């Protein structure tokens, strides 16, 4: 069972929910899909890490064979090749590795070499199987690292929790693609509810079953809760606004392991999610 945790807005508590659900489930995999700003490892502190470098192919010009015909430069839709002194020059950070220039070069003057964009890793945190990745700074896309991560998690049969990056663009789309169920984490501000409405649209575009976890709840009005009620969206659970929780979380501690009330809260939440997934499986 693959569960993706997303939010649109950053800082609403995706990693809090993902990590705590994983430790509550005991037999589970935690997958940190935020390879730009990964944080799951700060909480789970995985051991016995096995690291895999992630490489992408980028073109290389053989200057003896190149006759300066410009076919590659004119073809590249990403403007990754510039024509300087009658030769193509690559800007690797904008290259999407489509391979078009190599395939279309009439002189066969282009070959591909591997460029490192980051790494993927797996390890253990108690009974939790940890998977994560880190994009090299200065790179533009972590998608190849996510693809490597998903290859690594293929053997996972039990519960896998995919902790997604913020936003709703390519990295999030890639992260939820294979999910059986999505959890949207929302906070009680108009920013939170607006971004909830965007990811709500996204999970509908991808036809994914979903439910909402309301985080940082107080007594006052919650715009995200109002949004859920107005749109008939399942509220899976509520996490209160709590200084104690914030303090533990800011130190990289896992609240479900530290405080019995949160162990109970996440146990109930996990049960509710499992029920929802079973229901979705039947419909």
């Amino acid at each position, binding site marked *: 069972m693959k569960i993706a945790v997303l939010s649109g807005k950053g800082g609403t508590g995706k990693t809090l929910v993902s990590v705590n659900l994983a430790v509550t489930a005991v037999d589970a995999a935690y997958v940190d899909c935020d390879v730009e700003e990964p944080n799951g490892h700060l909480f789970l502190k995985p051991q016995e890490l096995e690291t895999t470098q992630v490489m992408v192919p980028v073109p290389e010009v053989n200057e003896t064979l190149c006759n300066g015909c410009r076919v590659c430069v004119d073809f590249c839709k990403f403007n990754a090749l510039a024509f300087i002194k009658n030769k193509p020059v690559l800007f690797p950070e904008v290259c999407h590795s489509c391979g078009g220039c190599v395939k279309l070069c009439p002189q066969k003057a282009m070959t591909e070499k591997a460029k490192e964009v980051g790494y993927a890793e797996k390890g253990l945190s108690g009974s939790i199987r940890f998977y994560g990745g880190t994009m090299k700074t200065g*790179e*533009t896309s972590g998608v190849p690292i996510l693809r490597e991560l998903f290859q690594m998690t293929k053997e996972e049969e039990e519960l896998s929790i995919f902790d997604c990056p913020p936003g709703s663009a390519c990295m999030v789309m890639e992260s939820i693609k294979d999910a059986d169920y999505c959890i949207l984490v929302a906070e009680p501000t108009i920013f939170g509810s607006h971004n909830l409405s965007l990811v709500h649209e996204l999970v509908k575009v991808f036809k994914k079953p979903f439910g909402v976890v309301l985080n940082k709840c107080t007594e006052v009005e919650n715009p995200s809760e109002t949004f859920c009620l107005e749109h008939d969206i399942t509220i899976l659970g509520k996490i209160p606004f709590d200084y104690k929780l914030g303090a533990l979380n*800011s130190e990289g501690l896992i609240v479900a392991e530290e405080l019995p009330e949160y162990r109970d809260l996440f146990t109930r939440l996990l049960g509710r999610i499992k029920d929802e997934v079973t229901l979705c499986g039947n419909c």
Partner: protein
Amino acid sequence: MRQLLILSGKGGTGKTTIASAFIKLVKAKAFADCDVDAPNLHLIMNQLGEPKRSDYYGLPKAAIDENSCIGCGSCFENCRFEAIVAKGGKYEVDHFACEGCSVCEALCQVKAISMVPAIAGELMLYKDAESIFSTAQLKMGSGTSGMLVTSVKNQIKDAAYPDTELAIIDGSPGIGCPVIASMSGVDMVLIVAEPSVSGISDMERIVKTARQFGVKMAVCVNKYDTNLANTKKIEEYCRKEKLLFAGVVPFDTTAGKAINAGLSVIDVKCPAQEAVLELFDATMKLFRAI
């Protein structure tokens, strides 16, 4: 026109809260929201009336004419993005996966593939007698946000009043393509950090990224009193890395209430308001000095 960009690495540290306050304090004649896949600035900077809207086209996406397709599989074999799907002996395009490289079009022997324009989002430009506000919304499922960020920034350059001295730009979380696109041409980045282990780790990665692109930076800490030991670590890190330190803002529930009322944190009398005023003065001093 000089540009001040607000970034954070980690999401939810208070970029938009700080940006909206600065825009009001400096009476910015130009401002923008570059967080195109989760924009929020328009929710509290909505005094400029209705925006001018325009469609944003990303790269055209492949379309296969099923009548011409002979099912040779050349598109399928050559696509690096898993965007070609086999169906009944022929092939179809997965629009979410297609990045618009047009390799399939170039290699199709029977010319069954064409590249079709695709709307990838909407650009919005608000304008009144004194100021302009550029923002955008990525279309859900269209993926590429870096190019849309560049369009948001081009809108400010094209539409700003000639006497505009300073543009304030609200950025997006992360360190990838939309963030890198937002950094182009800015004079300084203000990084809003948060005193948690996640906030520190993410700040270090955005600092490293901004350095690689040669952008000047200053750092401030929001919600600094939620973990004083971590705030101290951030200050020490800034000293060690010779980064400008602009100040701290306390955690204040009034700030959230102001936002929910469609206001900025400086519109309401509270401890965070005072701190943001000080942070603003300090940041502007650093900004003018560079």
